[in-house]
């Protein structure tokens, strides 16, 4: 099977999506962020010039535009770029797009994809490092997707575009260079299908997005100590695959949840609550969360590193649940 870098798989997906459906328009276009490879985006722009728009700095305006366009028959992917900027377009996303189908009694569909980069990026400071997915999870009516590998980003982006619901596609700049296997002619990946990224038997580590990669590295490290870590990646928060998680929890009885949203009311908090409700009797130890600390993200590199779900904190949590 061929190996691709994450950004290549993402781009392949965009090319295939644009070729397959004329209704797909791209609004704003930092899909490769500031990656050194971002020039490949120009190929797309050249080929589909009249379906790719570069809006002014008007998130409220263009998130609303994308939502309205979706109501009227297009299938736009709107790139919010830095996740923090979703706060500028927030009313259109959570109050209009999320509610439209339900409050119309099922009459109006909103097949829009909101794409953004979340999390700690290295010197982003407080206003460029947000992970808004926990807040969005608390706002019904939105599908939420977090790819963590080249295969996932391609398969999930296709499903996001095909979905008739408003979808938040939560990406991470630290994933762009990650390499992985991507089959030729791969199929889209359905939502609500978690993925066991690494089999193990001693502890279940549930994580999302870039943290999946970090947890895989931790798992590899701990295997030298003969600790067998199973890494489970939900891939989508809405819809959410409890079954796969619970199978793993039943197998190991020990759970660590690693996620980059802030601890309070974060993604890890919700997953922990669901596991505790559904499988308390399966747990051999209290579960542990490793999330970003509850402080505004500081600029200075040692401070930014300190507050994130660091490798040493993940290892410590794993050791704790194994005691």
């Amino acid at each position, binding site marked *: 099977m061929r190996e691709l870098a994450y950004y290549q798989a993402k781009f392949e997906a965009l090319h295939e999506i644009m070729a397959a459906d004329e209704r797909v328009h791209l609004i704003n276009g930092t899909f490769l962020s*500031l990656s050194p490879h971002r020039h490949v985006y120009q190929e797309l722009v050249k080929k589909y010039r009249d379906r790719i728009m*570069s*809006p*002014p*700095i*008007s998130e*409220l*305006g263009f998130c609303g535009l994308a939502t309205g366009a979706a109501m009227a028959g297009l299938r736009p992917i709107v790139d919010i770029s830095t996740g*923090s*900027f979703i706060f*500028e377009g927030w009313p259109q996303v959570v109050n209009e797009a999320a509610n439209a189908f339900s409050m119309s009694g099922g009459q109006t569909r909103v097949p829009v994809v909101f794409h953004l980069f979340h999390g700690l990026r*290295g*010197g*982003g*400071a*407080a*206003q*460029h490092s947000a992970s808004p997915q926990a807040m969005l999870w608390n706002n019904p009516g939105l599908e939420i997707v977090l790819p963590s590998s080249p295969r996932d980003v391609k398969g999930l982006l296709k499903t996001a575009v095909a979905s008739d619901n408003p979808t938040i596609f939560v990406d991470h700049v630290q994933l762009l260079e990650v390499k992985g296997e991507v089959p030729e002619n791969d199929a889209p990946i359905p939502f609500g299908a978690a993925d066991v990224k690494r089999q193990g038997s001693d502890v279940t580590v549930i994580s999302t997005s870039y943290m999946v990669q970090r947890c895989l590295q931790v798992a590899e490290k701990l295997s030298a100590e003969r600790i067998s870590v199973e890494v489970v990646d939900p891939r989508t928060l809405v819809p959410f695959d409890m079954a796969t998680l619970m199978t793993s929890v039943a197998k190991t009885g020990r759970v660590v949840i690693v996620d980059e949203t802030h601890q309070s009311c974060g993604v890890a908090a919700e997953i922990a609550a669901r596991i505790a409700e559904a499988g308390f009797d399966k747990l051999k130890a209290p579960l542990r969360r490793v999330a970003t*600390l*509850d*402080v*505004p993200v*500081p*600029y*200075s*590199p*040692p*401070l930014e*590193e*300190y*507050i994130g779900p660091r490798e040493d904190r993940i290892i410590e949590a794993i050791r704790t649940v194994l005691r």
Partner: protein
Amino acid sequence: MWLIRAFEEKVSALYAARQIVGLLHLGIGQEAVAAGTCSLLRTDDYVFGGHRSHGHAIAKGADIKRLMAEIAGRATGYCAGKGGSMHIVAMDAGFVTATGVVGGTIPLALGAAFAAKENGKGQVAVVFFGDGAGQAGPFHESLNIASLWRLPVIFVCENNGYAEFTPLSAHTLVERLARHAQTYKIPSSTVDGNDLLKVRDAMAEAVRRARAGKGPAFVEFLTHRLRGHYEGDPAKYRELSQLAEWKAKDPIARFTRELKRKKAISDKEVEAIKDEARDLVERAAQFAIDSPWPAGEEVDSQVTA
């Protein structure tokens, strides 16, 4: 202006040497706006900036050692390393805050102006933003409120023709942002931002009005950034001829020529100013490099008052 130029060039060098990380936006080429504007302000006037605000903070009187340390993420920085380049706060100099969100400080400046009006001491608020902010909703909301409530706020637009990587024309059909001020009945002017004396003249009038309780003003300065949007941006979207054209209008060079023409300054004095600026900046850089990194546990300090 030389201090700002020397500072920015040093920061750029430190960034290239990876002693500064993250996103860095330099104001090289736009020094006349910062220096000219702030030269008319009091320490107790409020200044707000954007992501390209090192120059604004320096012109307002910020301590360049603490500024450099902050940009370098050190514990001795203005924000103890927590803010970085885009989130400078130098309250002692009256530089309230910068922001990484385009137009993010415009509503904040309204608030400071509101408080200033209540204070009754003649303070004004000045907010710097670029042409990219003109398309943002909060910009319009702020113009409206400032006009309705006659707030002593001066909107200073540095129109350098580019919002990130695209020219203004790709963002709007409106060529001059001052046009929006007219909609809300705010007195406005569009001026050559690379002519220090013209900058001062425009600002002097605006400041005088605001201090006298006559309400807000909008000043649009036409200028250009000689670097890319951020350090590391190859700026291929810009024509080399355009860059050359603006280099010829370098604000510092122009002002120096003007002073020399009027025999108000000698070559020797110019060199002395440059040297002094570079010297101060070197010492600031050394201070920053020698300063300790903040300790991890510091993240929990100053989260709430």
